[in-house]
């Protein structure tokens, strides 16, 4: 009944599901506080909102021109970006900063993004701060998106530019233009290929997978924080496979066949 060639996948899946169950049970204990290493870029978000208020400029939030993917392998990154959107919305509401959200081109994701922003302002007790006209849509493609975002920086100014999500070749323009116009860049993407742009252009960067951990921390939700620990279990599993596999290969076993199970 189980497809051959998927046994190991299933095993890894079971390990993660079991860890998920275990840590979700743990979250029921209100005294449970796991240690998570500090991610410096997180503090910078609050600092950037403060800077925006001081300079009387808006906070910009972007999850990428193609950051609204709901049905690809990058869906997790879309959801992670939404956790940051909720966080920045609450911070903006608390500090009285205007928030401009640059929507991705995937129209099917707009309901979710708009709902998250609306919910964030509502949660902070300032639903009146939500403005649909600050939800900016620029059509399809890096061209219109980067130009739309750049024009918005030029027209309305940029205090903090928080860019988190799925970024392709759109970010080298949006990040650099925000920098040139005096904005503070904080951001990151799980797409390794574009991390270089964030590392080079941001004042504070989340390197690759750090965005998942950081999203959990900003959410202050025990369930999301437990996700970091679940990931660590997965990493332990990876290290075990790497070490055991290398040792077995060293003694002449056919590791390729074993890992193809």
């Amino acid at each position, binding site marked *: 009944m189980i497809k051959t060639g998927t046994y190991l996948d299933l095993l890894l899946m079971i390990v*993660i599901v079991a860890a*998920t169950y275990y840590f979700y049970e743990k979250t029921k204990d209100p005294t449970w506080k796991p240690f998570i290493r500090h991610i410096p870029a997180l503090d910078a978000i609050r600092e950037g909102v403060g800077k925006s208020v001081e300079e009387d400029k808006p906070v910009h939030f972007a999850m990428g021109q193609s950051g609204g993917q709901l049905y690809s392998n990058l869906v997790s990154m879309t959801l*992670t970006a939404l956790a940051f959107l909720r966080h920045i919305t609450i911070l903006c509401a608390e500090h009285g900063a205007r928030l401009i959200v640059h929507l991705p081109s995937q129209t099917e994701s707009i309901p979710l993004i708009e709902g*998250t922003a609306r919910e964030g302002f509502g949660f902070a007790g300032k639903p009146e701060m939500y403005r649909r006209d600050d939800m900016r849509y620029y059509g399809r493609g890096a061209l219109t998106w980067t130009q739309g975002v750049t024009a918005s920086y030029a027209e309305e100014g940029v205090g903090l530019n928080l860019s988190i999500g799925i970024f392709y070749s759109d970010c080298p323009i949006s990040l650099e233009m925000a*920098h040139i116009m005096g904005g503070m860049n904080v951001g990151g993407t799980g797409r390794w290929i574009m991390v270089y*742009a964030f590392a080079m252009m941001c004042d504070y960067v989340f390197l690759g997978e750090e965005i998942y951990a950081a999203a959990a921390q900003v959410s202050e939700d025990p*369930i999301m924080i437990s996700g970091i620990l679940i*990931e660590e279990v997965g990493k332990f599993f990876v290290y075990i496979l790497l070490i055991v596999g290398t040792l077995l290969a060293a003694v002449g076993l056919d590791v390729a066949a074993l890992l193809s199970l």
Partner: protein
Amino acid sequence: MAMFRREIPTAVLSFVGVVILLAFFTTLDIFETIKGVFTSWIPVISATSVGLGLIYMVYAQYMNYQRNKNLNNLIYLVVPLVFFVIFFGTALVVPGNISSDAYQWLYFHIYQNVGGVIYAVMFFTLASSAIRTMRVVTKDPSGALQFRLEAAALMFGGIIYTLRQIPLFQVYLPGIVGFGEWIMLVPNVGGGRAAVMAAALGAIVVGIRTLWGKEKTTTEVD
């Protein structure tokens, strides 16, 4: 009624996701069939929602203009609509639609041409950020020189692979092709593979949380 807003949509999400996983892991045809149905729906749902973006775009431009009636905002309100009508109208009305000469002319000289420019602009923005970042040695406030290992690694990978891609250096810098390929196929693979695996684990954990019905962004947003 509240159930239709939260619990049932979450159940739909979990059901769809779990069926697809079962299709992957099991040999039962039923799951494969249901998966086929769901995956064939995706392009239709996605494509049908396209008008939503147009509505948001026009609304935001209109409200911006209402709030601040300057020339820039007027341009943003009127010009996109004019070009929308020109392109959409040509595609819809002219015989041959997008294959017509008129549409091809618009497409080639405006859409495709200007589409390419934006990436050209990125050459300059990226170059300036690299000039700023790829500084291996800097001075600290006391005037002492500091070596920055990570900037050196970034520059090492960046400059060597750049030279490898430029014909001039391929010809006049012997070994640069092999060295560039080595950068791409050895240290890049080492670092890149780790990053790919870490990001994959992060994605799977978020995915399982989503199917479990515990992902706030999908459950709590109305």
